[in-house]
C-alpha cells in the first residue's frame, strides 16, 4: 500500500504533439493518500483510462513522473509496480479452476505453496466464493467472474494500489449494487489504496471518499461527494454531477452584482475578478417557488418518483427546479427564488464567488 503522487503528468498518443489538443492528458498533478478510496469520474474520452493505464504501467507518459511512496516508478513495467487492475469485462483464465486463478499471481512470484493456500482461502472468504473454488472459471456467471478478477488483485498482500476500470459495465443491473457494496466493504477491510474509474456518478459517489472529476484531459475538481455536489468549482462538475445537473444560466456582471434576464440575483458572497463570460450556477434542488421573484412560465413537469422536476422558462432560458409535494401546472405563471447561499457566479466556467459569511 502506498501514497501515489503524479507530478507534471502529460501524455499524448501523437508522436509529435504540437498544440494542447494533441494531448490526451494536459497537465495532471495529484496526491493520493495511502489507503484512500478514490474515483476518477468523467465522460468517455476525458482521459481517465489513459491516466489509469499510466498509473498501472501499461502506458509510459510523454512527460512527468509517477511516485509510489516517493519512489519513482515512471519507467517500471506493471509487474514491478505491485499494482492490481480490474478491467471492464472480467478477465479470467478459462482453463483454470477458481482456486488456480486466485493463486496465479502468487505462483508467478514464487510464493511458497502453504502461504498461497492461506491467502486464497482468506480472499475466497472475503469474496464469498468459497463454494466455487474447484469450479472451472469459465463456468461462472459474469458477476462471479468479475469477483475472481478482483480477487486476483487482492490476493497479493504487498499490492500498492488496486485499480478498477469501469468494472460494472457488463454486470446485470440488479447485481451491480451488490458488487458495489462488496467493493466498499472490501476497501474497508483491506485498506488498500483504490482507484475507481467510471463515467457513472452513482458508482463514483457511492464508492469514493474523494472524487476526481476530469474533462478533456484535465482535472476540474477534486473533492468529497458532498463538496462536488454543494460547491462545484466548475460548471462542468455542476452539470455532470447531480440528476438533473446544475442550472447554468447566462448572467451579466455589473458594479459587483450579477443580473439574470435583467433582474438582480443574490449570490453566496463577493464576486472575484473581472471580464470573461459569466454564468450563474444554481442546483435545481435550491430553486423554489415564491410569491415574488423571477417571473417564469412552467414548460414541463416530470414526475421522477420521490420528487418532480419542473422546467420553467425565464425569458428564453430554461430553469429546472426539483420540487417535493405539490407542483404547478404546465403553462402556469410562477415566481422562482434562488437560495442565495447556493447561487454562484462562474467566469469562463470557473467559480468566481467567495464563500459568503
Amino acid at each position, binding site marked *: 500500500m502506498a501514497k501515489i503522487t503524479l507530478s507534471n503528468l502529460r501524455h499524448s498518443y501523437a508522436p509529435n504533439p504540437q498544440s494542447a489538443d494533441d494531448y490526451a492528458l494536459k497537465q495532471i498533478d495529484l496526491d493520493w493518500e495511502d489507503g484512500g478510496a478514490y474515483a476518477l469520474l468523467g465522460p468517455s474520452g476525458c482521459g481517465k483510462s489513459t491516466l489509469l493505464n499510466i498509473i498501472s504501467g501499461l502506458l509510459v507518459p510523454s512527460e512527468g513522473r509517477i511516485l509510489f511512496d516517493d519512489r519513482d516508478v515512471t519507467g517500471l513495467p506493471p*509487474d514491478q509496480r505491485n499494482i492490481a*487492475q480490474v*478491467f*471492464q469485462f472480467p478477465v479470467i*483464465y478459462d*482453463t483454470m479452476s477458481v482456486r488456480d486463478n486466485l493463486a*496465479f499471481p502468487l505462483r508467478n512470484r514464487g510464493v511458497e505453496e502453504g502461504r498461497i493456500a492461506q491467502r486464497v482461502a482468506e480472499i475466497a472468504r472475503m469474496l464469498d466464493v468459497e463454494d466455487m473454488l474447484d469450479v472451472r472459471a469459465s463456468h461462472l456467471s459474469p458477476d462471479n467472474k468479475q469477483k475472481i478478477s478482483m480477487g486476483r488483485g487482492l490476493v497479493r498482500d504487498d499490492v500498492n494500489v488496486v485499480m478498477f476500470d469501469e468494472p460494472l459495465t457488463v454486470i446485470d443491473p440488479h447485481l451491480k449494487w451488490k458488487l458495489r457494496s462488496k467493493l466498499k466493504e472490501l476497501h474497508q477491510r483491506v485498506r488498500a489504496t483504490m482507484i475507481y474509474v467510471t463515467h457513472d456518478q452513482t458508482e463514483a459517489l457511492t464508492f469514493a471518499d474523494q472524487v476526481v472529476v476530469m474533462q478533456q484531459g484535465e482535472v476540474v475538481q477534486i473533492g468529497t461527494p458532498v463538496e462536488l455536489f454543494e460547491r462545484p468549482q466548475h460548471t462542468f462538475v455542476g452539470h455532470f454531477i447531480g440528476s438533473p445537473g446544475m442550472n447554468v444560466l447566462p448572467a451579466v456582471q455589473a458594479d459587483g452584482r450579477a443580473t439574470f434576464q435583467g433582474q438582480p440575483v443574490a449570490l453566496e458572497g463577493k464576486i472575484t475578478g473581472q471580464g470573461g463570460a459569466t454564468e450563474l450556477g444554481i442546483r435545481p434542488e435550491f430553486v423554489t417557488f415564491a410569491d415574488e421573484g423571477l417571473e417564469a412560465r412552467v414548460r414541463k413537469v416530470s414526475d421522477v418518483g420521490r420528487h418532480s422536476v419542473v422546467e420553467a422558462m425565464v425569458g428564453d432560458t430554461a430553469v429546472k427546479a426539483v420540487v417535493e409535494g405539490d407542483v404547478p401546472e404546465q403553462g402556469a405563471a410562477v415566481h422562482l427564488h434562488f437560495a442565495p447561499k447556493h447561487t454562484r457566479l462562474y467566469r469562463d466556467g470557473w467559480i468566481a464567488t467567495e464563500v459568503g459569511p
Partner: protein
Amino acid sequence: MKTENAKAWFFVLPVLLLVAFNALVPIMTVVNYSVQETFGNNVFFWQGLDWFEQILRSDRFHAALGRQFLFTFLILIIEVPLGIIIALSMPKKGIWVPVCLVLMALPMLIPWNVVGAMWNIFTLPKIGLLGYLMNDVLGIAYDMTQNPLAAWITIIVMDVWHWTSLVVLLAYAGLVSIPDAYYQAAKIDGASPWKVFRYIQLPKLKTVLTIAILLRFMDSFNIYTEVFVLTGGGPGNSTTLLSIDLVKIALGQFDLGPAAAMSLIYFAITLLVSWLFYTLMTKDDAK
C-alpha cells in the same frame, strides 16, 4: 408437450435432395460395386463381403494404410506447431498485416497439380534448382526419383509449404480476437510469455485449432494430386499413399469390386478418426 409439424419436412426437402444427389447416390453406386463382380457389359455377379475381406487381409492395403497414417501424422506434427509459431510472430496491426496475409494465402491458391509439377521440376536432379544445388554444389546425394527417404522428405516439405498457411490463417484469426485486457492482466499478474501462451492464447485458440487439425487431417488423409504428380507413388511403392493405391487398383488394374470395397473402408476410417478427434476435443465444453 412436444408439438409435431409434418410441414417442416418441406423446408428441409431441398437440402435432402441435394445431399442425396451429391453424396448418397454416388456412395450407393460404390456400395453396389463393392459387393459384386463385373467383367463389363453391365453383367454383375454377387460376391457378398468377399472384396472387403480380401482388402482387409491384403498386405498391400496394410502397407498403403501405414504409409498414409505416417504421412498424415508427420505433416500434422510439423504444420500445426509451425503454423502457431508463424501466427504468433506475425504483426497484429500496421501496414505489414495485409502483406503477410496475402503472402500466407498464396500457396493455397495454386492448383494442386501445379504444386506437384512445380516441386517435381524444382527437385529433379540435374535440371531442378534444388536438385542441382544439393547434388552439384553442396555435394549431398539427393534424388527423390531413386531414394525413398528423399522422396518422403520431398512430399512432406511440399505439403508443409502448401498447407501450413491454413493453420497460420486460422490461428492468426483466433489470436487477433483476444482482447488486449487479457495481455494487460497477465502482465500485472506477472505471467511469463510461456504462461501467457499456455493459459491465454492456447485456450482461446482451441476452437480454431480443432477446426484446423480436422481440416488438415481430412485433406492430408485423402491427398492424391500433389504426390501423384511429384513421385507417381515411387520410387517403387514407397510413396504410394492410400488414394494413389486406390486409383491404381480401380483404373490401372480395373478391379472395380476391390476398389469399391477399399473406398468404403477408406471413407469409414476418415470418418471414424474425424469423429473421435472432434468428440474428444469438444468434450469438456459440453460439461
